[in-house]
């Protein structure tokens, strides 16, 4: 096995843990088994003795020692498993024979030599369980060898020891084997991790097997990798965006300053160049700030500031802010809302999002245009919408306009960074809201669907 050392040792640890658990469990189980079988055997011997005594003493056996002696004599011939002793009042043996003469009434255990019939070695002692019954004219002793019980106990003791040893060994082997399997599976995961670290970012974890928990782990790891890959892709994208779209204006600025240094002679001309340069620098800085903001929002910043918002009131704020702007540009701005359109989010960001859409409509629509904004409730959703009857966006471009720096051909000449809708999309995504851009025939309908929150959350 080429597994790294920690995996090999983890297999070993697993085996040791299994072995200990099974050894303890096995010992406990076998001991309980041992005790219950032994006590059952003992109880069954006493049962036999009680029954035998009852049969012997019935029908005059108890009162007449002669009858009892006769019965015992016939029993001895019939069943040699039991041993008997019948004594008269003076203690003389009337029938049967035992090595000892127990006198205490009730059950007791006596030790007797092994039966002399050659079945056992002569020096081996056997214990006999006896039941002594005092009679009016003598006493009766019925006994049974417990040799078989001792045999059973001995045998079960051995079984217990070997059973525990066997189970422990099997558990250790099982632990080692499953540890090795786990190690081999994790080996594959480690190999995949190493590949990903080497830069194969689109590689994913192989199936681990071994059940649903590991499959869930694999899926989670892969989802994490998806997110990371997307983030890195986004960063790479932003980097190239910055390289392209920020260097261009900076380069222009540099040319202008070079030109001023080389050719301008009057203070007025210099001032004009400086003013122009400042304006351009500000625009470049704005782009930079917008990019940072989008990146921050995409990274999930701002979720901590989420709270309940009355979308209608929020849209009204935007409406009141932009109504004079629209009017000055020769447009008509209209506002409509429903009450109870409560959503959860960051009001600062949402105001910026809606403002972006309204500003787009104001800037890109030729006057006089009708621009409408509002909030409406659809089932359990709240839809914020901004619509205009301007030129709209060609359907081929609708899916691309939310990309950073994507600009429609006809708007390239007008001011704007190409980041507005990217910011709108980022803010919507932060709120798990669905942004949809549709052709309004004519114009554009931008709507953002939020999950509707309860009115109570606004009070709380």
């Amino acid at each position: 096995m080429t597994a790294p050392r920690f995996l090999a040792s983890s297999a070993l640890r697993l085996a040791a843990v299994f072995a200990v658990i099974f050894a303890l469990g096995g010992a406990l189980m076998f001991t309980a088994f041992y005790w219950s079988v032994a006590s059952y055997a003992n109880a069954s011997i006493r049962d036999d003795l009680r029954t035998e005594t009852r049969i012997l003493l019935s029908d005059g056996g108890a009162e007449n020692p002669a009858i009892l002696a006769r019965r015992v004599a016939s029993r001895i011939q019939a069943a040699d498993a039991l041993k008997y002793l019948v004594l008269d009042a003076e203690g003389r043996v009337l029938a049967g024979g035992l090595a000892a003469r127990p006198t205490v009434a009730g059950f007791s255990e006596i030790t007797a030599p092994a039966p002399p019939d050659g079945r056992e070695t002569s020096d081996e002692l056997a214990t006999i369980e006896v039941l002594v019954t005092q009679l009016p004219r003598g006493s009766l002793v019925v006994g049974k060898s417990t040799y078989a019980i001792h045999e059973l106990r001995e045998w079960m003791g051995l079984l217990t020891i070997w059973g525990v040893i066997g189970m422990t060994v099997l558990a250790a082997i099982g632990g080692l084997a499953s540890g090795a399997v786990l190690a081999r599976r994790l080996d594959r995961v480690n190999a995949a991790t190493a590949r990903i670290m080497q830069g194969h970012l689109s590689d994913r974890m192989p199936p681990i097997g071994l059940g649903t928990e590991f499959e869930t782990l694999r899926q989670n790891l892969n989802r994490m990798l998806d997110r990371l890959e997307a983030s890195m892709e986004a960063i790479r994208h932003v980097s190239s965006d910055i390289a392209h779209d920020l260097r261009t204006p900076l380069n222009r600025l540099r040319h202008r300053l070079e030109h001023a240094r080389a050719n301008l002679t009057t203070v007025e001309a210099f001032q004009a160049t400086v003013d122009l340069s400042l304006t351009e620098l500000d625009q470049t800085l704005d782009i930079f700030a917008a990019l940072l903001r989008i990146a921050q929002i995409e990274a999930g910043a701002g979720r901590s500031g989420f709270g309940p918002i009355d979308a209608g009131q929020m849209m009204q704020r935007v409406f009141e802010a932009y109504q004079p702007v629209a009017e000055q540009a020769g447009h008509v701005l209209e506002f409509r809302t429903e009450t109870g359109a409560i959503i959860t989010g960051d009001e600062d960001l949402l105001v910026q999002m809606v403002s972006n859409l309204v500003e787009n409509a104001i800037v890109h629509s030729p006057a006089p245009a009708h621009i409408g904004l509002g909030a409406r409730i659809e089932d359990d959703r709240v839809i914020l919408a901004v619509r205009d009857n301007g030129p709209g966006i060609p359907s081929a471009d609708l899916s691309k306009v939310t990309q950073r720096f994507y600009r429609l051909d006809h708007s390239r000449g007008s001011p704007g960074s190409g980041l507005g809708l990217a910011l709108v999309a980022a803010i919507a995504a932060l709120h798990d809201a669905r942004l949809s851009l549709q052709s309004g025939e004519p114009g554009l309908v931008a709507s953002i669907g939020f999950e509707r929150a309860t009115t109570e959350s606004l009070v709380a």
Partner: protein
Amino acid sequence: MKLLLLEDDAETAEFVRRGLTEAGHTVDVAATADDGLHLALEGAHDVLIIDRMVPGGDGLSVVRAVRDAGKATPVIFLTAVGGVSDRVEGFESGGDDYLVKPYAFSELLARVQALGRRSPSIDLRPVLDVGDLQLDLAARSARRGLTRLDLTPQEFKLLEFLVRHSGQVVTRAMLLDKVWGFHFDPKTNLVDAHMSRLRAKVDRPFGQDLIHTVRGAGYTIDDRA
């Protein structure tokens, strides 16, 4: 006014110091959090200008320490990060205003002056006035001379902010921030559009203008006549 500037970049600090001095203020400059806190606790400054990121600690911790020492000196934060949570953090630690780098110097000057002039007694007056313009804050009504001005709530709010800072320059960014609660830079001339409506009601019918445009900076309201 006496100002404290906590800024670690020597060139920026010198540029800002020179600008503020030319505007008639005295400026103490500190480059580290320790020096900044030391100066802030020792000197009687009218406004503290605190960079968020300085060697030896966060500008936030300096302001917290100043507040903990019982000083209520107005604070304006300068920061390179302009996220929503950063702004909230700034206010929570005891900041009064917040400016994101890069900023125009005129913006900083206007905000510093607005903070320094702020005095609780002015804030509590029930009626504010500039020239013959009177604002009744309780009734939310405005008059010029004997003529009552018909203002929307939004217009009243804008006028109130101007009048509270009469004689000072208020920038568009300040107005967006304080009047509209917009913490971003609109692409359209939002402030100018509202201002021209306001002027049409406050100034145009009366012959004498109170609201003036300050080129390259913002607006101011005063009785220059």
